[in-house]
């Protein structure tokens, strides 16, 4: 019972961001910097991995439709710069370089993210907006590179036995040889999946297109 109370005291739910209509055209929101509050986020980010914040928006009211927005954050360890890329509905892509995490938080507060492009039929109607926000710790390219690296790891003992230098270490090739443990290698490498480390779900019921009281 005490533990439960303690957990209740510690637990702070992430504040739901407000939806803002931009130019009578887009639904936007400010991604709460709290989405990056994961303990391992900083360590992963500073290892050079690309953290993706994926927002999937589902709109109900007229018909069931969805859109995806994406923020990719990569830390250039050599240059010590945070490289942020933003992909928004309507095909808008923007880049920004930030010096540190504080600047990133400020950028989150300052710059809204478009999550849905509205059409005329959406206006002045009661709409239900559901947003699923996923924080994925690495990109697809990094997933594939690690899969290839992991697959080649299995070749290292054989190569070492033959007195050869590991190709993996020399980065000569990332292709896998079909040995006796080929199936085992495939099974193990496919266990490296791109899954979110944290997921938030928000829901609003709003009417867009008229002045709010």
């Amino acid at each position, binding site marked *: 019972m005490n533990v439960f109370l303690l957990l209740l005291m510690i637990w702070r739910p992430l504040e739901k961001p407000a939806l803002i209509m931009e130019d009578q055209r887009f639904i936007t929101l400010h991604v709460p910097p709290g989405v990056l509050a994961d303990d*391992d986020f900083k*360590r*992963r980010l*500073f*290892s*050079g*991995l690309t953290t993706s914040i994926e927002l999937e928006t589902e709109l109900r009211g007229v018909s069931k439709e969805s859109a995806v927005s994406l923020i990719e954050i990569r830390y250039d*360890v*050599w240059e010590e710069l945070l490289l942020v890329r933003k992909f928004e509905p309507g095909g808008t892509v923007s880049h920004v370089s930030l010096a540190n995490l504080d600047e990133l938080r400020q950028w989150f507060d300052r710059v809204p993210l478009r999550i849905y492009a509205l059409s005329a039929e959406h206006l002045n109607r009661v709409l239900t907006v559901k947003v699923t926000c996923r924080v994925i*710790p*690495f990109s697809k390219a*990094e*997933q594939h*590179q*690690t899969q290839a*690296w*992991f697959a080649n790891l299995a070749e290292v003992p054989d190569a070492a036995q033959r007195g050869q230098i590991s190709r993996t270490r020399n*980065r000569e090739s990332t292709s896998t040889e079909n040995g006796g443990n080929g199936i*085992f290698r495939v*099974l*193990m490498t*496919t*266990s*490296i*999946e791109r*899954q979110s*480390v944290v997921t938030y779900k928000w829901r609003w019921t709003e009417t867009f297109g008229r002045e709010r009281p």
Partner: protein
Amino acid sequence: MAFKEHLVSLSLMMGACLLFFQISQRGLSDPWIQLALDPEVNEVLSIAIQNQKKLSKYEPEREATYRAQFERTQGLLAHREVLLANRGAISRRYQRVLFVLFALSLCMIAGVQLWRQRNLRRRMLVLQHNLEKLAVGATDLEPVAPKRDLVTRIGRMIEEASQLMAKDRSRLKYLENLEGWRESSRRIAHEVRTPLTAIRLELRQLVRLAHGASDGDMRDRIEHKERSITEELARLSEFTDAFSSFAKTSAPKRKREDLTAFLGEFQDLYATAWSNLTLSSTLAVDTLLVDIDRRMTRQVLVNLANNSAKALDAASGTLTFDLRRDRESAILEIRDDGPGIPESIRDRLFEPYTTTKPVGEGMGLGLAISRKIMLDHDGDLELLGSGPEGTAFRLTFPLAAAPANPPESAAIHTD
């Protein structure tokens, strides 16, 4: 045990093995995964890349080298971070793969075991059927698939027992049949001999009366007829003797003999007995001790040689004796290069009164008597084969006692 019971017990064993593996494998695999994905290593790598950066600032002329080292280390760190993020999934997959591999191996072992069990059961059923057949005296046994196991050995023993039984039955049947023939011969000999003696006495009386006759011409004619009748009576007497001899074939008086030496003596003694026949032999060097009646055994050999010589007619040929040891028997194969025995009589060759000779030239009792002699020696006489290239007989003698250490079998050839 029934197949279903095996299946149930194997399934239970497999289940227990899988459960034990599942319980223990986590404890076995987790430390290794922990070791491989130790977050401390990542921290060290992180410090290392920071150091590379610092070093490049201190030694700008070597920046490219440090940058390359930096990128390599950073790449490694990134890969490890990806793995660390998937640690749970990797661990689960690893355990699942091992579990499936273990389960597959068990299934394979169980499958092979069941297959072996089923196969063994099938072979045991064949043995059971063969034993049942053996019990009722049937000889058409099913073959047991040959393998190096006890079932094959038992199957072979059943087969041997069946062959022995079949041989004994055939021998018994032959002897019973022969006994019938001998009884008939004895009766015929007796029935013929009595009037034959009376005729002979009456003939003597008639001749005596004729000697008293005054007519010389008549006397001559009677004497001539008397000689003619006496000749016919002598022939009849020969036949009666043959019948009688067949009927009175006595039991052999067996003595321990070395068959090799016996055959050598026979060859020396009868080397010139048949003008158209040359005796040749291939005799085993080692001693083959058998319990035989010398006289009767010689009679068998003489009988066979007589037949060969008569079959050759005017032509010349060779009679070969080939003696060898076969397990607990001495095998003597006698083959000639004569014209062979007609196929029509081969099946009943050892039955009395079976002959290829013209009427009046032979009774066809020689081979029947010879086989009877061999059977009385607990051996046998068989026709091995016959054709235009010659005829071969096989004589089997049971060995009296095997030498303690039989020398390596070798053969010498003498003509």
